[in-house]
């Protein structure tokens, strides 16, 4: 018998009652909600209190070159409940701030809700440049500390900007 996750209709009903109707899509028994940024932390806290105790992943999509995109970054929170086996995806769309071109957007951190978000948000900061306000230790995770760019953005070239070869050369007589 194929494994299917239980439906999340009861959770969606509770959310609609509390936050109003939110845009949601269903694809092959995976439900995805879109929540605007001012309400995102409250919604995630509400979902945690409804039993979604496992934060599976925090990741991001850069829609810079995507046709028909209305916002640049789509933050994705994958949630799961270990008690009822339900799964839910929460999407938060953010944009670059108008004032500074290089700095990225800021959203509120969910480390207070799920400890796993500590490294997951560090990875998103490292690779996309989205700041998480309230994060206890926001620094780079996978790239070296002295790296300056955010490599998974669409305007960063695949081969990099020369950082990978910026090291001293050791020749035979040095060593």
């Amino acid at each position, binding site marked *: 018998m194929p494994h299917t996750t239980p439906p999340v209709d009861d959770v969606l009903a509770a959310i609609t009652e509390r936050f109003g109707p939110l845009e949601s899509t269903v694809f092959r028994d995976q439900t995805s909600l879109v929540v605007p940024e001012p309400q995102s932390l409250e919604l995630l806290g509400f979902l945690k209190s409804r039993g979604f105790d496992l934060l599976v992943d925090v990741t991001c999509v850069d829609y810079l070159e995507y046709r028909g995109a209305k916002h640049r970054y789509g933050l994705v929170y994958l949630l799961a409940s270990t008690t009822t086996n339900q799964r839910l995806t929460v999407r938060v769309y953010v944009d670059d701030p108008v004032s500074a071109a290089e700095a990225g957007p800021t959203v509120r951190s969910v480390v207070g809700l799920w400890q796993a978000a500590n490294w997951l948000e560090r990875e998103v900061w490292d690779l996309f440049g989205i700041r998480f306000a309230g994060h206890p230790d926001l620094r780079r995770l996978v790239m070296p500390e002295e790296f300056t760019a955010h490599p998974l953005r669409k305007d960063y070239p695949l081969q990099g*900007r020369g950082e*990978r*070869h910026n*090291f001293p050369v*050791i020749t*035979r*007589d040095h*060593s």
Partner: protein
Amino acid sequence: MAVTGPGNAGRIELPENVVVSRLDELANWCRKNSLWPMPFATACCGIELMATGASKHDLARFGAEVFRFSPRQCDLMIVAGRVVMKMLPVLQRIWQQMHEPKWCISMGACASTGGVFDTYAVVQGIDRFIPVDMYVPGCPPRPEQLIQAIIDLQDKIQREGTITGREFDTAGRQLRKRALVEADELLVIDAARNPNVQRQLSAAARRS
């Protein structure tokens, strides 16, 4: 030992237990047959490196008996796998901690050229930052290819090695950088005392 008759004038008969050789060749023979690898295995080629050291393709047959994980005890560093830019300073530090004479094998496509990963984080060939003696192509190379590389390195050591490690002293052998055009005038820095310049200046003054 006796000097023989007129047919072999000047030739000395050696008994069977005496070998005449050069000190360099003797040292090379000892070193090539006891290369202790330092396995710098970062990725998939590391698995093939382990397979080469296992019993089916036995690397210990060629003297590489012990895979010491301390660079102080090794003389051959086998870089197996892609090296990211976060790892490169570590690689350089390990290389510098090895004692001379030391050699390096770059195993696999990623260590030699970056392989299929032409990305912002992968160093496109460790020979940009480390002196490499042997390159082993493959993704991953079969154990037999790595063994062939070890054998070729042994031949290289036998051919080119010295007991004091003079072959590693490359700075003395490199050509001194010279200017494209060497002129006598350049030797005299002070133009006022340079006779050629004075001559040209006075000729120009006379013409004008």
